[in-house]
Each structure stands twice: as C-alpha cells, then as structure tokens.
C-alpha cells in the first residue's frame, strides 16, 4: 500500500481509497462505501470511513459540498488531487520494484 503519511496514521490506506473514489466526482458517505467496495473489494465501516474523512478534511484534501438532498456529499480539492497523484506515483514505483524482483526470483 501507499507510503504512510504521518498525519493520516493508520488511515493512510483508507484515505487513499477515499481520494480515488472522489477523484471521479463528489459522493456522500453511503456511495463512497459502495464505490470503494466495488473498485477495491474493501468493505469500509462507518467509523473508519469518517476517521479518514475527518483527517482529509482537516488537511484540506477534500471538502463538504452544500447538499442538494438529505445526504452531504464530499469532493476532492486541488490539493487532494495533487496528493493523490503523488501517492499513486509512489504506488507505481513500488509495483514496478515488486514486479522486477518477482521476475528475478523466477529467472
């Protein structure tokens, strides 16, 4: 998983999933849980999700949107998008290193 961001602690991985989910558009908590389960297979519980949302909001990586309906949606900010790009680049480097090492092991 991604490099740990000290301020996010054990929520680093969940925060990454939330940022990926919001990168395609604003979502409320219920839709985020469903979306994350769909694209990653990770089933998030509300306590974990909102622990990550609190940290992402505090860092200014996501923000609440004025709700048009009962549920309050969140959207990713420009800073959040930059942070997501950085995290994904780190993941790519890890993935490439892993693939290379697995290839050496089987050679």
């Amino acid at each position, binding site marked *: 998983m991604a490099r740990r961001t000290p301020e996010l602690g054990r929520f680093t991985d969940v925060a990454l999933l939330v940022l990926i989910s919001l990168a395609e558009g604003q979502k409320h908590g219920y839709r985020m849980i469903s979306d994350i389960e769909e694209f990653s297979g990770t089933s998030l519980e509300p306590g974990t999700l909102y622990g990550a949302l609190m940290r992402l909001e505090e860092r200014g990586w996501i923000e609440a949107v004025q709700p048009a309906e*009962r549920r309050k949606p969140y959207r990713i900010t420009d800073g959040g998008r930059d942070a997501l790009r950085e995290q994904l680049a780190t993941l790519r480097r890890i993935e490439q290193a892993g693939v290379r090492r697995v290839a050496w092991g089987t050679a």
Partner: protein
Amino acid sequence: MRAGVLRAVAGAVLSLYPKAWRERYGEEVADLVTARPVRLRTVADLAAGAGDAWLHRRRIPGARPLRLPLAAVLVAGIYGLWLLWSPGARDLAGLGSVWDEAARAGSLADELSGTATTMFASAGALALLSLAQLGTAVRAAGKHAPLGAAARTTGRRVVVTGLAVVLPIMLVLTMYAGLMLDAGEPLGPLGGAITGGFFVPPLMALILPLPLIAATSPVLSPAARAAGKSLTVAAVLNAIAWLAVAVLVAMGLREASPWFVTSLAAGAVLSVGMAALVARAVLRRAPEDPVMLPERTQLGRAPF
C-alpha cells in the same frame, strides 16, 4: 445477535463521540447505520472511531479546544491531594524511618525540613495577604467616581463570596495549624515539612473566586492583579518547598516504601499544578493595563 439490537447499540455508540464530531458528522453516520447492514464489527469499528475522535479531537473541523471547568479541576485537585495525604503520605512509620535515614547526613536534613516548612507557611501567608489586598480595594471601591456604583456592586459580590468561603478557609487553616502544632499524633520533622504542600494549594483554590470576581470591575482589577501576583509568589514558594522535600526524601529513600514515594510524588505534582493554575487564572483575568479613566473636564470627569 439480532440486527435490530446491533443497530440500536451502534446508535448508542455514536453518542460516545465528542460533541464537535457529532455536530459535524453525527447525522451522516447515523444515516449510514440506518441504511446499511450493522454487524458486530460495525459496532466495534464505531467504538474504535469514538476513541480515535477523542484522541484527535483537535482535528475535527470546527472543534473548539476542550476546556474543563476550572472549579471542577480544583475541587478534584483538593480531593486528590487529601486522598494522597491520608492514608498515602501521612504514614507515621514511613515518615519516621525516612527522616531517620535522611538525618544521618547531619544538619542538612534539619535545614531542608526547616526550609520546606517555612516556604509552605510563607506561601499560605501570601495567599492570605492577597485577601487583605482585595479587602482594602473593596472598601475603597465605592468612592471611585464615576465607576463607583458598578464597583460597589462587584465589591458586594466579593464580600458575599468571601463570606461563603470563609468557613472552608478557616477549616483548612485550622487543620494545617493543628497538624503543624502536633495536635493529635506528632508527624515528626518530615511530616511537618510536607504538610503545607497538601494544605496551601487548597487554601489558594478557596481564595481564587474572590480575585476572579474583583477582576470583572475596572476599578477592582488592579487589586485583583496585585492579589494574582501574591498568589504567583505563593505558587513559586510552594514549588521551592517541594524541591526541598524532594531532596530530603531522596536522602532517606532507602527507607521509603514505594507507596509512600508514589503518594508523595503524586501529591507534589498535584500541589504544584494546582497552585500554578490558581495563580495563572487570576493573572489572566486581571490584565496588566490599569483602568483608563476619562479625562477630567471643566465640568468634572467626563461620563463614559
């Protein structure tokens, strides 16, 4: 467990979150709990989330700093100190054996014991002096035109509160004096040296409401600040006295039981913390700037 019960438990767990968190996210999470399946792990996850939210309360958007009421902290401090005093620190056998061991070093033990006793007593005297400073200002308050009426009202509040706390103050002073004069079982030189540390901060805490009330009046505020300075010196003397006690106990440490040392150390921390809290509270409420009275005009002092 039935889903309905788990859902109810999950809803109850939400009330364990900090108020700021509930105001910000409570409705959304309650909605999730209603709309999604609730399992045992959902409840456990919410409980862990509540603990996390309390631990990282400052991260909650819009959260204000957590403030415990000063009065509650000081009342708890007084109870804590006296619980540590008896049966913790007032262990006659422990006091005697630690003193005997410390006294082997010669006159240093006597000097340290005398220093601690004098410092604690001086701290108590300074705390009482702050009362005298306020009393003088309250008596003169009514004569201070054009703010006399308001100052008189505040002065009356100081007097009424003073009457309410005079009995507890007398009680603390009587207990302190009684122990110092060896009424009941003699505490010995070490007991005499530490007693003040357990009674002076409660005395300061009982006096505290008076300068805090006085600080609300511009006329009485300088007197409240003067009282705050006296209480600050009292807090410093209290801390110095505890340093002397610490050296004394270190000298007799070989004979000290872990329970005695723990009680005394916790008592010292609580005593120093309480005294500092009282002094800081007064200095913060009574600002340094003196009251700016209006310029005098030909018609006398201009009204506000």
